[in-house]
């Protein structure tokens, strides 16, 4: 665990709050899913909170984030309103996308949160293109692309790495290696095994592998990555080793791994570790923490109520936003 010495007290509270918010949001989502208030596929981020919070907390408003279907964590870390997020999961008119996208397809354009993409690997070339747009317009911004160890096997990974490097685009490739793509272990699908950051070298992209359960390590690596990217040196690659405690989605009976493996990872729970460290270093008090817990519980309760009480969309919106101009057909 990295030392927390350089953190401000306000930052510590904020990181703790943000990670806890995601954790509680996911737990609440699971409950609402069991109550059939949420439909479709639901992929929880529990266990991986330090990655999204650590990385995204370093971005500026003009930067962009794009990710896959396991996206609640990234969305909330980027500041999406939990109410709008939960309402979207419940398919309500007040949802972030009026109920049209759902859990796997969250968007918040005002925060440059560009989705929520449910085709494995699909966000990679799009993220690269965002980098291209940034660069061609001379904007002082970066794009952070989150993706999983499973996505690395798609051809689009290769195409995206090549394009980003070739054109020296301001892209942070952020791999969340949680060891599994659905039920299949990375060792069984990836010839190179689990140290995927090694792939970057061939593309001339600087890369590091970090402990994704350690918020401070995530922040340190991201800081360095953004420094390089903002200096115009082209893309960087971060592989955060992490773990999802729950199944791939709520539909997953999780038969492919031992519970002991989960328990081992839980020892390094990113929230617990951060909490312990912050307490130890006197950067937060128990009382402050309890206040945050209470606040988060309220935010979640409010989000649930908001979602439940919101109306479903009217049928007349069904043809809206297929095209810029609504057409009859």
């Amino acid at each position, binding site marked *: 665990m990295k030392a927390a010495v350089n953190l401000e007290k306000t930052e510590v509270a904020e990181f703790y709050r943000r990670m806890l918010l995601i954790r509680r949001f996911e737990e609440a989502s699971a409950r609402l899913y069991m109550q059939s208030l949420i439909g479709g596929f639901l992929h929880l981020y529990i266990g991986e909170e330090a990655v999204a919070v650590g990385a995204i907390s370093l971005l500026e408003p003009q930067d962009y984030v794009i990710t896959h279907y396991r996206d609640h964590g990234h969305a909330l870390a980027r500041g999406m309103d939990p109410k709008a997020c939960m309402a979207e999961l419940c398919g309500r008119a007040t949802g972030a996308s009026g*109920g049209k*996208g759902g859990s796997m397809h969250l968007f918040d354009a005002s925060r440059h949160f560009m989705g929520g993409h449910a085709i494995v690997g699909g966000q990679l070339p799009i993220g690269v293109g965002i980098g291209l747009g940034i660069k061609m317009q001379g904007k002082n911004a970066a794009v952070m692309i989150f993706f999983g160890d*499973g996505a690395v096997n*798609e051809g689009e990974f290769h195409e995206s790495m090549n394009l980003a490097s070739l054109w020296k685009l301001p892209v942070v490739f952020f791999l969340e290696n949680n060891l599994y793509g659905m039920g*299949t272990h990375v060792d069984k699908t990836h010839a190179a095994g689990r140290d995927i950051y090694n792939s970057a070298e061939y593309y001339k992209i600087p890369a590091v592998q970090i402990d994704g359960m350690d918020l401070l390590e995530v922040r340190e690596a991201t800081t360095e990555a953004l420094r390089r990217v903002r200096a115009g040196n082209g893309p960087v690659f971060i592989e955060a080793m992490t773990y999802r405690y729950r199944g791939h989605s709520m539909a997953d009976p999780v*038969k492919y791994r031992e519970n002991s493996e989960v328990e081992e990872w839980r020892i390094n729970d990113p929230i617990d570790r951060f909490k312990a460290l912050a307490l130890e270093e006197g950067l937060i008090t128990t009382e402050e923490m309890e206040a945050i817990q209470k606040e988060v519980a309220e935010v979640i309760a409010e989000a649930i109520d908001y979602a439940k009480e919101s109306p479903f969309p009217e049928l007349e919106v069904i043809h809206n936003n297929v095209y810029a101009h609504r057409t009859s057909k």
Partner: protein
Amino acid sequence: MAEIVIRDAIANGLREALEADERVFLMGEDIGAYDGAYAVTRGFLDSYGPERIRDAPIAESGFVGAGIGAALTGMRPVVEIMTINFSLLAMDQIINHAAKLRYMSNGQLSVPMIIRTVTGGGGQLAATHSQSFEGWYASVPGLRVAVPATPYDALGLLRASFKQQDPVIFAEHSLLYGVRGDVPDEYYEVPFGSAAVRRHGADVTIVGYSRMARVALEAADRLAQKGREAEVIDLRTLSPLDIETVVESVRKTNKAVVVEETWRTGGFAGEVASAIQEEAFDYLDGPVARVGGLDVPTPYSLPLEQATIPDAARVVGQIESSFGL
């Protein structure tokens, strides 16, 4: 005779083939350790081992291409693309390669490969996960397309697929896995290119396939309550397309509606409707009607999704408005 669900009918058909023919093997994402995304291959890994139940990386183009290559050497691969939405990533291998190798080589090569995949919407999976592309595949010369709607057909068509020397797209509907039906104990096959008349009636012909064949039956039940008897035809395979059975029915009922789940505009129902009027124009009381999915990316929210996908009420409504029945 046993009553089983479609999931088990397909599993039985796969096991049968795996046991009868050592050239048969399965390859796809999460078919092994995970037991299959839709649990069709549950327990297969234990029974047949990782060589024949081959968990593949998430690389649709790669492992579909690998299936083609294996077929070229004499294997009989069953490649699973988790859902038809992801088949877009393998479309080049399927259409530019699998479908064309026999022709371009003038019969020197053949690709006896089954691509199992899951089609359709209805589980609130939203726009990227609710599509139905089987009609596109059915238009590609060199491919065969099966779209079973019952356990009997699922098993019978799967057996027939293993007899094909050409690539077969075997499209299973995500919402039909739990549908029950009788399956004989004796061996049988359902031949490609033979539609089933699911219900007899003289007032109107409703044509559907996959889940829409069941929706058609539901619509027929509702019509029956109004004293109208619909004939319901389940196409069972889109390639070959058994248009004769459809036309024969329309010659009797003089009215036809084609129901399909994909976007109405440009769907395969256009083929069926066009063919009906080409073959039976003089028998028609009015235009062949089509009921299709709304021309929108499928929305996530339940009420919106339900309004998008055709249901019995819409079919009945169309029949009312088209034919005054």
